[in-house]
């Protein structure tokens, strides 16, 4: 089974208020040496057994749906066990 992980992150120039909120909470944990926290999404996709062009299809999914290119960037990585199966 082909497994693909897509990571979606807000572009660096877009303010990430969730990350800021986490950063703001860190001193309460006693952690004071963190400069920045950014929060994104990890999407795990499992293709059918005999799916073709898994990476290409994943790029389409990421570009057209999972990420909004106006505000987000993404990376696609086909998981190693999927490579073996192919």
């Amino acid at each position, binding site marked *: 089974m082909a497994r693909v992980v897509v990571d979606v992150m*807000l572009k660096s120039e*877009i*303010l990430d*208020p969730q990350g800021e*909120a986490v950063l703001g909470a860190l001193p309460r944990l006693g952690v004071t040496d963190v400069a920045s926290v950014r929060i994104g999404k990890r999407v795990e996709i499992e293709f059918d057994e005999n799916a073709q062009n898994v990476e290409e299809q994943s790029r389409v999914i990421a570009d057209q*749906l*999972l990420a*909004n290119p*106006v*505000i987000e960037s993404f990376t696609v990585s086909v998981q190693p066990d999927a490579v073996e199966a192919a």
Partner: protein
Amino acid sequence: MSARIGIVTFPGSLDDRDAARAAYLAGAEPVALWHDDAHIHGVDAVYLPGGFSYGDALRCGAIARFSQVMETVKAAAAQGMPVLGVCNGFQVLCESHLLPGALVRNAHLRYRNRPARLRVETTRTAWTNAYAPDAEVVMPAKHGEGRYVADEATLDALEQNGRVVFRYLDNPNGSMRDIAGIANEAGNVVGLMPHPEHAVEALTGPSTDGLGMIASVLAHLSEGARR
């Protein structure tokens, strides 16, 4: 015959009934449209209401973009049909690439619901021609993801081409350049975060300023019919 304004109901839409009532109060005939039906039943304009289409899964408006009805709405918008997106409807228009930019989490992370004071920045759109230039209006805002963002080049282009339609007088969400609403190049597609359909009756709204948007589209349509 009064103009027919189609109001789309997506799974999770909240303000479709209010939008229909606003259309009715302003003298239009509201027509219910369904997300899963590509047919828009001969309407003259389309109103995408607020709410949480498809539960805001993934990103607000991201799934609604792929609905049957949006295929037709996109094609109709390209032909000049007036399309208004309010709140979630605005998010759907951005996700559908009918309008540039995106709407993201409010900078302060809090859901904000209170009347918003806005300035009408242009009356040269299908949905704002009935307002006085630079009119100040009040419409309720109620959203968690209403911060308008776009890259600097897009923002500059919007400003230079008179496509910023509404600007907040007290920015409630951190929107870039206080933008509350924008239009496409032709001015037939408009999106804004605050809700005109909640500002149509003194009993339930902070003003009746929202009626001007329906009055505008009616004027726009009758002008088109005269031509």
